[in-house]
């Protein structure tokens, strides 16, 4: 580089530096947002749209989207947290990690913040309660969804085979049996994701012991090696051994499982109501939304749980980095989350942990159905690993793969889980 060129580039750098630093002084904000969702998917789509509208009015404030696959999310968050470089907003799927971050003061207390911003009344109390329960009593993640879980089923396939909505586990197994004999895959399931299979164990024990079962495990008054757990794990393993989840279930990813159900190749699909976004999408849904029914996890013989107990959760929570919280971020949050509930329902038919002030005229039928069921729920319980440490979560989910293929006995499965829980 010759002398004049070097001089020119140096002065350009200097000028740039001055411009950047003054821009920073004007209260501008770069909000980084890390999530496993794609930019057009789930609450991320709604958040980004609302944020774009905000950026048009306040050009200095913008959201920078970052992606990490869900299987690596907690690892990534731990590394980022350890090096003090967490994003401004981030999805988080490990309640125990969220509690650790909270104990270290790394995440914003949202109850306090929302009250200060004057938008606390926008939150649905049920959702707030759920999130507090998961995070040890504090509201440190945003309930951007409010889901119930259960079995979705293909009404047409049920009618063609003269079957009714199963209400007991035996009914469910009988229905599955009938489909299998007809050459129809009874359940669509993603064994690659692992958690869709442990959900069935969680549902079974909630029916066996009642909705507080995992609270008792957490308190140490009930061991997962108890007879009822063995019964539950054996029942789920039987479904796998009989091939009811289809071939190669442990290699089936989430989208493939959704597609299998929406293309009419499987009769039933256990999943949370977040999947409505896929069901309400005509391009994906080949069997038609009117053809999809929904029933609660069936009761089991001699069990304490009832059909008024639902598996409820707020989906993948989003936490806010305390170190990056300032007035600019507060204003952005106030604007985005004031409109979030309405926007999510109107655009995606999504039920959220935010109150809806303007009910759109054309709420999809399935969304209305889920809303009705949510309203009738007497007791809610969390997913199987809701209270587990990251280690116990891994043991529960990893081992469910050899469990359903018959390579691991129910006793060994529970023994390993119990020792991971200690």
């Amino acid at each position, binding site marked *: 580089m010759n002398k004049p060129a070097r001089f020119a580039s140096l002065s350009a750098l200097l000028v740039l530096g001055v411009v950047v630093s003054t821009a920073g002084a004007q209260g501008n904000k770069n909000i980084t947002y890390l999530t496993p969702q794609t930019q057009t998917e789930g609450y991320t789509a709604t958040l980004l749209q609302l944020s774009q509208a905000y950026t048009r009015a306040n050009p200095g404030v913008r959201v920078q989207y970052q992606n990490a696959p869900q299987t690596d999310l907690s690892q990534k968050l*731990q590394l980022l947290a*350890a090096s003090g470089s967490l994003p401004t907003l981030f999805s988080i799927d490990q309640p125990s990690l969220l509690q650790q971050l909270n104990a270290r003061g790394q995440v914003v207390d949202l109850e306090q913040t929302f009250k200060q911003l004057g938008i606390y009344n926008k939150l649905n109390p049920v959702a707030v309660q759920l999130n507090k329960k998961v995070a040890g009593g504090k509201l440190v993640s945003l309930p951007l969804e409010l889901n119930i879980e259960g079995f979705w089923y293909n009404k047409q396939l049920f009618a063609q085979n003269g079957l009714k909505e199963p209400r007991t586990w035996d009914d469910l197994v009988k229905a599955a049996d009938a489909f299998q004999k007809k050459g129809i895959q009874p359940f669509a399931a993603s064994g690659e994701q692992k958690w869709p299979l442990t959900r069935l164990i969680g549902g079974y024990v909630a029916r066996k012991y009642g909705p507080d079962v995992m609270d008792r495990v957490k308190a140490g008054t009930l061991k997962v090696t108890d007879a009822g757990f063995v019964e539950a794990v054996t029942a789920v393993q039987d479904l796998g051994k009989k091939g009811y989840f289809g*071939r*190669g279930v442990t290699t089936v990813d989430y989208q493939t499982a959704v597609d299998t159900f929406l293309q009419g190749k499987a009769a039933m699909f256990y999943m949370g109501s977040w999947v409505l976004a896929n069901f309400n999408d005509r391009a994906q849904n080949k069997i038609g939304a009117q053809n999809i029914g929904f029933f609660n996890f069936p009761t089991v013989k001699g069990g304490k749980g009832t059909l008024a107990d639902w598996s409820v959760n707020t989906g993948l929570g989003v936490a806010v980095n305390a170190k990056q919280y300032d007035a600019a971020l507060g204003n952005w949050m106030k604007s985005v989350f004031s409109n979030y509930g309405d926007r999510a329902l109107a655009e995606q038919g999504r039920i959220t942990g935010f109150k809806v002030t303007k009910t759109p005229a054309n709420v999809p039928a399935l969304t209305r159905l889920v809303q009705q069921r949510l309203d009738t729920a007497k007791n809610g319980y969390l997913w199987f690993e809701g209270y587990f440490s990251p280690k116990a979560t891994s043991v529960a989910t*990893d081992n469910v793969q050899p469990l359903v293929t018959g390579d691991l006995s129910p006793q060994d499965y529970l023994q390993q889980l119990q020792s991971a829980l200690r």
Partner: protein
Amino acid sequence: MERTLRDWRAVLVFVGPALLLYALVVLVPILWSLGYTVYEGSPIAGFKFVGVSNYLRLLEDPTFWKALWFGTKYALFVSAGQVIFGLALALLYAFYLKKSSVLVRTLVFLPVVLPTVAVAQMFVKLFAIAPQYGLVNSLLSAVGLESAVQAWLGQGSSAFWIIGVMDIWKAMGFYAILLFTGLVDIPEETIEAARLDGAQGWTLARFVVLPLLAPITVASLIFSLNGTLKVFDSILALTNGGPGTATTPLTLYMYKTSFTYGEYGYGSTIALTLALQCLLVTLLIFWRARRSGT
């Protein structure tokens, strides 16, 4: 040369910066990690001194022993495959294809430069069963062997062989080139003299070529074993250690323990055993090679 080496200032100037960099990026983290083995916790949860309890835990951790055994089994199988196939290819290049081996060498070497994740994705598709049959299951189905159609990567037993075959296929080109350079170095007269004495084919290889190639074969073996004992990316991309923990080697177990479970201390202890294993294997090969006089 000797005068230069006696001048400590010159040594400092020439070696110093590299040594400093090496110490910073290699030695310091190793010592750091060694220190972690007597602690437990993570940067988020904080650290606590626990003495030797991480080492004791190692002894009674079934997952650790399973991972150790899987890793050893895998390393033996894959290293043997890589070096044997590498050797066979090198002999093929040198004695049969001779000057026209360039194209074959390039083709066999190609997988070496492909990203592991891409190769693994290709193998995932090859052995897929859902939503559609992959090539392998399609072929089986087409020739009427519907009963042999299975979830190849969904069961521990078959997943092991697939990972092994993939890693052999991916790396054998590298070892073939390494051994080929050794073969090219063998003087033509030596071969010629052996031929005049009546050595041919297998006899020639067994008594002349292989002994002369021994030093480079030992080097390849050390390379290969150390690479395969530390296998990570191919398994992560192919099965992520599953189903269950059936295909989890020590590296993956260490990674999960440290970064998923947040147990940096125990993770470092596992890392230490892996380092010791690599050291042991290398020393063993050196010792064998020296005893056999090569």
